[in-house]
Every structure is written in structure tokens, then in C-alpha cells.
């Protein structure tokens, strides 16, 4: 596994000038969540995977609670 490297130089973030390292997640101005899902679904379908989202299970919810305890 790779070792953590030094922080990036100031200004090498993504659009924030001179304020250090940020990683901002944004969609395009007119994009929606459904557009993102469509892109992901297309890739999954291309390899024959059912893209139907599997909601979290009760057991997973309990595990998440335990992790946060």
C-alpha cells in the first residue's frame, strides 16, 4: 500500500486559489442526481450487472450504529 506523501503545494487544489488543498465534489451546472445515476448504470449494464440499487439492510444499519458508538 502506498505511503502518504507530502501535502500538495498551495494552489494545487481545484479552483480555490492560494488556500491549500481542497477536493470539491460538484456536478455540472445542469446535471442532476438522475444524470449521475444514468452514467453509472450505463457502465454497470455494459458488463451485465443489474444496476438496481440495493438499499442498506437492517443489519448494515445496526453495524453502522455500532461503528459510531
Amino acid at each position, binding site marked *: *500500500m*502506498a505511503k502518504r506523501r507530502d501535502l*500538495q503545494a498551495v494552489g494545487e487544489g481545484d479552483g*480555490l486559489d492560494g488556500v491549500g488543498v481542497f*477536493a470539491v*465534489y460538484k456536478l455540472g451546472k445542469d446535471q442532476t*442526481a438522475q444524470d449521475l445515476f444514468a452514467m453509472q448504470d450505463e*457502465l454497470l449494464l455494459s458488463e451485465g450487472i443489474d444496476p438496481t440499487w440495493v438499499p442498506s439492510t437492517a443489519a448494515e444499519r445496526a453495524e453502522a450504529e455500532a461503528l459510531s458508538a
Partner: protein
Amino acid sequence: MMESSDSERRARLTEADLRRADGTVRLAWGQLPAAHRELLKEIGASHWQVVGEPLGSVVDGLLRSGGHPGLSRGNQRSLDGALAVWIEQLRLMVMDGGHRLLDGLDESAYERFVFNNAWHEWGHALSIGLCSAEDVAAGRRLLELAPEGIRKNIRQGGYRSSQYTHELVANVYALLMIRRRQDLLERPQWLNEEIYRLLVRVTGWTE
């Protein structure tokens, strides 16, 4: 500056809305492979905060509180439409739990979207922490090797070329996590071998 309709919508946000978002991020955290959670803890990237305001002013306040210089108005504006941000200086992921794109999603779509955003940001944390300068420099070339949909998404996001590698890792990481939900751990057919090897190296992804 956000539009007035955004302000009005946010004024209707409740504590329960933010708790819902926070709980969903916690679920996303729980679904990460244990080794990834450990790695994120190791690099100090296991903390998050869900807020109900545009991220520009929030991040400005967090930075100032932490003894760092604040953000200019221009930088605040560029953050205001963001879904989430990983702040390296504070080792903190901040998510906008009141973002307009969360509006109107049914339960499973809401969960999927918040999961995606959280996995994306943790992918970022790993990428920024563990990619080499050479990896970052190769961003433009790597983007050309990415599937068309991912390439288009990153371009539409208006990122600098110096951010392409990190965006690529974050986008693919979220997709690998979706596949993992169906017990698929090997390299996807649609993913270029070089990009996959980068993911394996920086995230410790194992088949």
C-alpha cells in the same frame, strides 16, 4: 452567492433532515471495506460533518476556527454549489445536507446519492493523500483512458487538469463500491488497466 429560492428552501431544512444525511453518511462509512476504514483513519480522514448551508461560508468559518486563513469571497462562491468537500488542512469531509440535488429524491435514490457523495470524498482523501506527483501529472492522459461517461462528468464539473487524477480516482472508487455491493471485486470490464492499478495502489483495493 446562492439564489433566494435556495435560501428559502434551506430555511425549511430541519434538524431531522441533517440527521438523516449524517446517518446515511455513517451507513456509507460502514459499507467501506474494513481495511479502507483503517487506512482512512490512518491518514486522518475518518471525520465528517453534515451541514445545511452552502459550503463556502461553512468552510470559511471552519478554517478560521482552526487557525487557518479564511476563504476569499470568490473562493467561497466557487464552493457554494458543491455537494461535498474534503478539506486536507482540517482532515475533515464536509457535506451539504441541504443541497438542492437532494430534493425530491425517493428513499433509495437519496441513499444512493449520499453514499456516492461520501464514497467520492473518501476516494478523494485517499487520492490526495496517496497519489504521487507523477500520478497527478498524468491526469490529462488518464482522463482520456477513462470511460466516456466519467470523462464527461469530470469535464462538466469544470475541474483543473491538475485535479483530473483525483477526480478520476474518486469517481471510480464510488463505482467500485457500488459493484462491491453485489460482491463484484475484480476489475470492471469498462475500466482501463492503468487506472485500475492506480486505484489498487492508492486505495488498497483488493479483489
